[in-house]
């Protein structure tokens, strides 16, 4: 392998795949199966996947690419595997984090104790676009702000996990967790008879139960749940339709909704019917043209008033984005300690906030070693990966950084772990990350044993985003 020090490999451990190395414990049974499988059979199965995905219509749309309006995310057939003990450890850390995030959001929209205590700078909140003054003093039904959270986690060593990002707005990708597993079950039934893997297929049922449990108290009978999508041209439309389908919920667009008699209601063939819980996959900005962007046609005029009066549940709550803001991220260890009284179980990646003068100076000096991200960016756009960038790219980025330092944070380039993918020449390591999905209800937090493993398909690449050549893998959590 080219490169300085080989990254930790999920299958082969710290040493990489040298001759005679034994696979790491979670991969033992899988490797035994793999070694006994005919390579031609595996290749044929890998080719089948694309056909299955295309026929099922598991596609995503890439913005600004007319010709490739609907693309497939490449799927690799070699699973990423966690042992039961690795998972227990991760799950504890994730749950702690998600509890802290909800406590933080309640506090930040009520008494703001954490600001008074000086643990997070007031200015960071006040000047933040993700902070919604409209939410001050509002009590979301059941006290839940983030009904669905997707925590992005990377690994650098056997015991070294880092949280890259807490997605507290509308984390996507869970449909891939479910469809990837479904595809694997279809293709390799015998493998699942050999290796005991925990189920993920319960997620839609748990999601529905969790959302229903957060319904406004006033609603009587079984709560009506709907998924709000921007429409069929949105990049994640497949997922919106998939989740609505699996939950047995209505899939609605802004044009279907209206405020009627103090309720948010959908236009049915029999007239307007009230909705209790709206799982929205539309950003805050577009949610209510009366409160936010007046040109938005994706939202519902007046929905925020109904929400504030307790007439509807919006999941995730408007304004929840203040918790996953990249500038806030660097304070997560303090935030966790402040609300839970415990040290954070999962580490943060050390982060330089470019808004701070000393940090900016350091970052400018070390651009070639760092990853620099926009505070509000997502999808891997607008970021600089120092070690992979040319001198000209670095110079251009330095100029951007100097002109608007508040907009950026920087982190060291982590040696992301690798996992093998199946290539024409057999197994080859590629860098991966991981997003587990967490459901928060008023009375419980549930973490599905699995998640979305994204993989950078290009050799050596660290960018796993699907819009930039990333693929996905099935993620296994083994039974004890």
């Amino acid at each position, binding site marked *: 392998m080219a490169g300085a020090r080989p990254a930790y490999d999920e299958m082969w451990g710290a040493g990489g795949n040298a001759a005679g190395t034994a696979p790491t414990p979670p991969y033992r049974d899988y490797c035994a199966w793999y070694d006994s499988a005919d390579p031609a059979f595996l290749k044929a199965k890998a080719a089948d996947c694309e056909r299955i995905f295309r026929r099922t*219509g598991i596609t995503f749309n890439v913005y600004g690419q007319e010709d490739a309006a609907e693309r497939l995310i490449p799927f690799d057939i070699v699973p990423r595997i966690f042992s039961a003990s690795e998972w227990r450890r991760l799950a504890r850390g994730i749950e702690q984090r998600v509890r802290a995030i909800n406590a933080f959001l309640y506090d930040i929209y009520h008494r703001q104790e954490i600001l008074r205590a000086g643990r997070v700078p007031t200015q960071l909140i006040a000047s933040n676009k993700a902070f919604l003054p409209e939410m001050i003093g509002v009590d979301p039904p059941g006290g839940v702000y983030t009904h669905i959270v997707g925590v992005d986690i990377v690994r650098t060593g056997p015991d070294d996990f880092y949280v890259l990002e807490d997605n507290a707005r509308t984390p996507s990708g869970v449909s891939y967790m479910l469809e990837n597993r479904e595809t694997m079950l279809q293709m390799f039934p015998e493998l699942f008879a050999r290796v005991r893997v925990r189920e993920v297929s319960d997620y839609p049922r748990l999601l529905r139960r969790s959302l229903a449990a957060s319904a406004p108290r006033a609603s009587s009978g079984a709560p009506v749940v709907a998924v709000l999508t921007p429409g069929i041209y949105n990049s994640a439309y497949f997922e919106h339709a998939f989740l609505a389908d699996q939950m047995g919920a209505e899939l609605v667009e802004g044009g279907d909704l209206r405020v009627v008699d103090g309720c948010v209601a959908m236009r049915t063939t029999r007239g307007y019917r009230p909705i209790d819980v709206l799982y929205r996959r539309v950003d805050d900005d577009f949610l209510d043209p009366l409160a936010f962007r007046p040109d938005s046609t994706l939202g519902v005029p007046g929905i925020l008033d109904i929400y504030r009066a307790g007439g509807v549940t919006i999941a995730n709550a408007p304004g929840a984005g203040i918790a996953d803001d990249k500038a806030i991220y660097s304070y997560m260890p303090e935030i966790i300690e402040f609300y839970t009284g415990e040290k954070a179980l999962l580490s943060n990646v050390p982060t330089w906030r470019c808004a701070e003068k000393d940090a900016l100076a350091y970052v400018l000096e070390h651009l070639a070693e760092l990853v620099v991200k926009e505070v509000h960016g997502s999808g891997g756009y607008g970021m600089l990966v120092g070690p992979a960038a040319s001198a000209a790219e670095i110079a251009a980025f330095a100029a951007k950084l100097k002109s608007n330092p508040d907009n950026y944070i920087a982190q060291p380039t982590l040696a992301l772990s690798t996992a093998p993918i199946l290539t024409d020449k057999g197994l080859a390591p590629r860098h991966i990350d991981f997003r587990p999905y967490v459901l928060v209800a008023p009375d419980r937090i549930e973490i599905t044993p699995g998640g979305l493993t994204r993989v950078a398909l290009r050799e050596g690449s660290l960018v796993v985003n699907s819009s930039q050549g990333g693929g996905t893998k099935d993620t296994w959590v083994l039974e004890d």
Partner: protein
Amino acid sequence: MLGRTAGGLFWMFRYLERAENCARLIDAGFRIALTRGGSGAGEWESIAATAGVSAAYARAHEAFDGPRVIDFLLRDRRNPSSALSSIDAARTNARAVRTALTREVWEATNEAWLILRDVLAEPVGEQNLPEALALIRREIAQVRGAFEGTMLRNDIFNFCRIGAYLERADNTARILDVKYYVLLPSPALIGSSADNVQWDMILRAVSAQRSFRWLHNEISAYGIAQFLILDRRMPRSLAYCYAELVENLKNLGAEYGFEPPSTAQALTAQRRLNERSMDEIFAAGLHEFIGGFISANIDLAASIEEDYRFFG
């Protein structure tokens, strides 16, 4: 169900029906051109008229000739009713309402779109035309088969059916409208070869050459008109389409507990078909009868859209 979903299902099935009818119409025209020789410009013009695309065609091309009309009907994106545009539109609607469809129906629709999009990516030469047309029919038959075999018989099913039969009635009526003159009883012309070709073309356009022969010993204008308008055994006749429409609208009424104005409108249109003999229709004027039917069918579609809140 959401009004938008009902509208999406309705249009998905209208477009599927339209794509299939379009393929049949091209097939019929192609047959005439083959048997007749010559340019057949008049025939192709009437086929464009039957497909309801004369104006759009005139904007795109100057003269009517076989290859151009075929291409325009088959795959031209400037023609919103071409087979390819219709399949696109059917699939876009299906995508928007996929939560209302079984996995089988969605996958059959998506697969039809994937396959036909490739087959129709380039102009289809005469040699490959019969095969391409058969493929369109087969792919759509698969969607229909999945639909028949897997969908619940509820309001979702009813809206799909209503879309399909409104479109089908419109299609059959248009064939009659364009070809009415060859169906007028005129003793002098019976048995002439020109008419035989025309009659065959009409039957072919509704896939009924064989079934017509099962029922009629002799091919005649009167028999064909009767078959396409009043025969309730014929699945593309106006009477059959309206029997289906009325039944599905009534099922909706029963499920929803109310009968909106569109149901009464469909019943009135059905009565106009059931209460008249072919002689009476000829006496009152076939052309006028069909014209009246087409506009009543369009009105009915508009009422259904309004009654069930497809758009607002």
